[in-house]
């Protein structure tokens, strides 16, 4: 599928924003300024962006504990996110969510989630809403290879098939759930897609470190789902560049594994090489994007650090719309 120059630049920029946002967090967390659990998405950018570049504002996504990338890809404000992760006033969720619960319904981002597997049934619900509206909209449930073992994920897949909901299960297989390998935890010899297929939906597979493959496969999948054929699933083979959460010593990695994946499976490097080799885009234009994004991330970080904490009195606001 041929993307326009603008589309290519936009996709690259989205991935670059995620990458730099996360790399910066990785640095900043060392200072101790950022509280709580932070799960970095770094390495999986092509997945979030390869999926979300196909979506409009009124398509829905539901995310996971490793949600920054999905948020950014779906259009959440990066500065608001940074403030939120810093737990500051003016954060996207007013300091109440932190890294793990960011949402912005105005861009169709229905929420990251601290409970593994909780999002999938919610995506089915959002998809049922889209089905009622009848405008060809879809809902995406991002899940990990670990989340695919949670009962809710299975129930959601079956329910989507039964109700013919335009729901898409995107399994980002980064080979680990916390410290445990996918070869151990997913009974079916590692192939998550075939397990989804057994629920009666069509499935696709793609290299989730390759933006173009992900994007093209999603195009095909989305045509199928938007046409009213019910749900579908895709398994994306991807990598996380950091630990499960910040602080993880990653002893479970093989020797040289991190170097290898940074080297061979970096979606940004691959993107640059591909568009450069094909003469689609001048590398200098990508460098310009990098520079622009670096400025954005620097500003987001500086603004977050400078922002005041939330007013402690707000601890009891926002519980109910009315009580």
């Amino acid at each position, binding site marked *: 599928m041929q993307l326009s120059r603008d589309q290519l630049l936009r996709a690259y920029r989205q991935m670059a924003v995620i990458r730099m946002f996360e790399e910066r967090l990785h640095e900043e967390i060392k200072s101790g300024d950022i509280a709580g659990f932070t799960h970095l998405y770094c390495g999986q950018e092509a997945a979030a962006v390869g999926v979300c570049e196909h979506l409009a504002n009124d398509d*829905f996504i*539901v995310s996971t504990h490793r949600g920054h990338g999905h948020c950014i890809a779906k259009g959440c404000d990066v500065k608001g996110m940074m403030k939120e992760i810093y737990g500051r006033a003016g*954060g*996207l*969720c*007013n*300091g*109440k*969510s932190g890294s793990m*619960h960011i*949402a*912005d*319904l*105005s861009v169709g981002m*229905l*929420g990251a*989630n*601290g*409970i593994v597997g*909780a999002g*999938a*049934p*919610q*995506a*089915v*619900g*959002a*998809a*049922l*809403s*889209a*089905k*009622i509206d009848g405008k060809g909209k879809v*809902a995406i449930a991002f899940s990990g290879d670990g989340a695919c073992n949670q*009962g*809710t994920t299975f*129930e*959601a897949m*079956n*329910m989507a098939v*039964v*109700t013919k909901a335009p729901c898409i299960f995107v399994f980002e297989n980064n080979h680990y759930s916390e410290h445990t390998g996918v070869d151990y935890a997913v009974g079916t010899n590692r192939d998550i897609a075939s397990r989804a297929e057994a629920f009666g939906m069509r499935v696709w597979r793609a290299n989730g470190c390759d933006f173009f493959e992900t994007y093209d496969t999603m195009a095909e999948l989305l045509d199928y789902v938007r046409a009213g054929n019910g749900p579908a699933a895709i398994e994306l083979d991807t990598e996380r560049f950091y630990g499960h959460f910040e602080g993880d010593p990653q002893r479970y990695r093989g020797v040289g594994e991190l170097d290898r994946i940074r080297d061979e499976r970096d979606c940004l490097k691959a993107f640059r090489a591909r568009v450069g080799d094909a003469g689609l885009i001048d590398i200098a234009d990508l460098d310009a994007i990098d520079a622009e994004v670096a400025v954005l991330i620097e500003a987001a970080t500086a603004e977050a650090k400078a922002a005041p904490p939330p007013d402690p009195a707000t601890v009891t*606001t*926002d*519980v*109910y*719309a*009315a*009580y």
Partner: protein
Amino acid sequence: MTVMTIRDAINRTIHAEMERNPDVVILGEDIVGGNGTAGGPEAIGGIWGATGGLYAKFGPDRVIDTPISESAIVGAAAGLALAGKRPIAELMFADFVGVSLDQLWNQMAKFRYMFGGKTNCPAVVRLVYGAGMNAAAQHSQSVYAMLTAIPGLKVVLPATPADAKGLLTEALRGDDPVMFFEHKALFGAKGEVPDGDYRIPFGQARMAREGGDVTIVTCGRMVSFSERAADKLAAEGIGCDVIDLRTTSPMDDEAILDSVEATGRVVIVDESSPRCSLAADIAALVASRAFTALKAPPEMVTAPHSPIPFARELEKAWLPSPIGIEAAVRRTLAFR
């Protein structure tokens, strides 16, 4: 006014709200019935009959039979609500909160708060609860204390057909997740129901009896048990205020405190085991906020700290009884 059962009040309210607002949708197990069978969709409205006729009128997009997957049912309701609909999810038995708690507790209840107040989750979950039908340990429980404890949820327990209509309408027009408890032994209870649009604001208790000597605070099926005790005592000249809470979250603290300020004596009746119960919650409220008015210790009439047994004689022994309530009233009056 029209006389009808709670079942019919619920059924008609759902019909009316679905007609009024195309965003209202309903999902659950066998709420249609007959899907995928030779007999075809029955639209009898499941084992309780409360959703009868909906499918015939509103069709499969808005009246959704689901597989046996309660987490996905409640989760889908949460997602529907986030996406702008007003879902009603049915849990055939409230005991199935056990297999769907996360979606109620950690999801629906917390969205608005976690997302910084920028979203609403207007989902109504109907839960069929309560003992009295010998349905034993896993199909008889009153789960309202567990859900009342959860910030972000509202908890509603109609005891009359009129309240069923007024409270369900209110639930479906509001913007917060509402746990709507329907007592299985009350579906057939009859009463007058106001015609036309009828809403009852949450957090307003109903004074089911006025007496003035003792305050009885209760909800759900225990309202009628308390009324029976109160009527018996009234014949002896002992007057009881019977407060039907209607909603336990928000709860009408003022109604309770006002009555206790006047009577100085309170009996709390709760169809549940005692620990960390609604009874304890109300006793604590009264003890801390009507302390000086209290002339006797708060009396709690609850089930024992045990699961619910099957056999008729055992379930009867488990349940609070009008006689037990009466005895508690006499105990509190006897206290000097």
